């Protein structure tokens, strides 16, 4: 469903993606992790062409992203993207945030879109916030609305770029629960996250990146128990140390 073949990307002289080869099948959940600056955001952002690739081939849900003739807006309508900073539309109410794209892009009626939006809001546990504005919501609530907004387009793929990194610790759980529920429903997902609990429980595969290279690609159990590369071992040690320090 998502196939990277020999993908390269440069920011000027900086080689951010170096020969990426990845394959995500329908219904699969891929977790991407790695140290800061390793290219995780860039990688996930190439999947809906927020970042264009410079070399190689990338095919997403049948759309060839290395072909200039591909209608990128059509692909993006099929791919939901959830940002670290939520990026809700601040001038619109929760319900309008969710119905905007379905009514304007899918051309479904306002009434139908609102009904579907309420189903989604109920699913993320926020039906009573339909008329609130983003600034009136907590971070966790905003992120759940952002997920509902993405789902309203009935996407075939969902992308998450560190969806819980901007949240206070007590709100991380509520967002991860929504994502887990989504994964169990069979959604194809690529998730950049450092939430190793989520990765272990939900991911089918983990890709570890460093310096623009996918160093390791493994089943979560193998990755966490038997990391192969020194960089991966080091990364996991650093990730686990503060957590253990916090919870003695």
């Amino acid at each position, binding site marked *: 469903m998502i196939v990277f073949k020999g993908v390269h990307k440069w920011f000027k002289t900086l080689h951010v993606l170096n020969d990426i080869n990845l394959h995500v099948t329908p219904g699969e959940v891929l977790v991407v992790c790695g140290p800061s600056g390793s290219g995780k955001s860039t990688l996930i952002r190439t999947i*809906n062409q*927020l970042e264009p690739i410079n070399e190689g081939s990338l095919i997403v849900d049948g759309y060839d992203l290395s072909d200039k003739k591909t209608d990128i*807006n*059509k692909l*993006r*309508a*099929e*791919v939901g*993207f959830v*940002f670290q*900073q939520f*990026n*809700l*539309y*601040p*001038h619109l109410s929760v319900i309008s945030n969710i119905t*905007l*794209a379905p009514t*304007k*892009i899918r051309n479904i009626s306002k009434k139908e879109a609102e009904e579907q939006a309420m189903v989604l809001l109920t699913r993320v546990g926020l039906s009573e916030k339909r*008329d*609130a*504005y983003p*600034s*009136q919501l907590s971070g966790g609530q905003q992120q759940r609305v952002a997920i509902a*907004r*993405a789902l309203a*387009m009935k996407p075939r793929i969902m992308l998450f770029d560190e969806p819980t990194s901007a949240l206070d610790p007590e709100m991380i759980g509520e967002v991860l629960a929504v994502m887990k529920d989504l994964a169990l429903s069979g959604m194809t997902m690529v998730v950049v996250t450092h939430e190793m609990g989520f990765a272990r429980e939900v991911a089918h595969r983990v890709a570890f990146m460093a310096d623009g290279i996918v160093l390791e690609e493994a089943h979560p159990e193998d990755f966490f128990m038997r990391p192969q590369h020194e960089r991966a071992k080091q990364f996991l040690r650093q990730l686990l140390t503060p957590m253990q320090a916090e919870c003695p």
Partner: protein
Amino acid sequence: MLNYTFDWSIITSGKYFDWLVAGLITTLKLSTISIVMAFLLGLLIAVMRMSNSKPIRWFAHAYLEFFRNTPLLVQIFFWYFGSYKILPTAVNDWLVSTNFEFAAAAIALTIYTSAFIAEDIRSGVLSIPKEQMEAARSAGFSYLRSMQYIILPQAVRITIPPLVNQFLNVAKNSSLAMTIGVMEMTYQARQVESYTFKGFEAFTAATVVYLLLSILITALVNAYNEKVLNIHKAA
């Protein structure tokens, strides 16, 4: 010593009152049309100024520099005395048959003001975080649709204070239209003065009208703004 007897009655009733009211109506019409058109044109130029296409960007840039940096009076004269030489005859005939002075003044005011409005809107747009555009684009909106539904509504809200200024300028600048014979407020006050020699009264009336017009514009925009802000505050 003061050798002038005030006579307010001439401007509160009769023929001269009618002239002033006619002037007021023309000023209102000219200002309203120019404000609405200048706002729409300003939006368009602002979007063109930020376009991906170099020629479009360049055109918008040239437009802005040209119309912001030449005097409004010259632009009014240009449209009035100069434009018929470059326009097709059919258009000219139609313009003359309608009200050419008014049309020339409205066009000049619209274009001149749109250049300033475009710059105000552009700085509003630049102040919207780029993540908003990313969120819109990743939902599948084209660049222009993203502008229409997500970026511009936010930018215009931020731009309201400078926009009020531009609207006020239109109302005040519309008085320049008298120079090409548009019978607006200042023109009519001038007429009353030359028929009655009651310049003080006539121009006091004109001053009050411009003042009230400015207050009205400010109040209208503020009311709109308030409404929008209230929606935001509503829980």
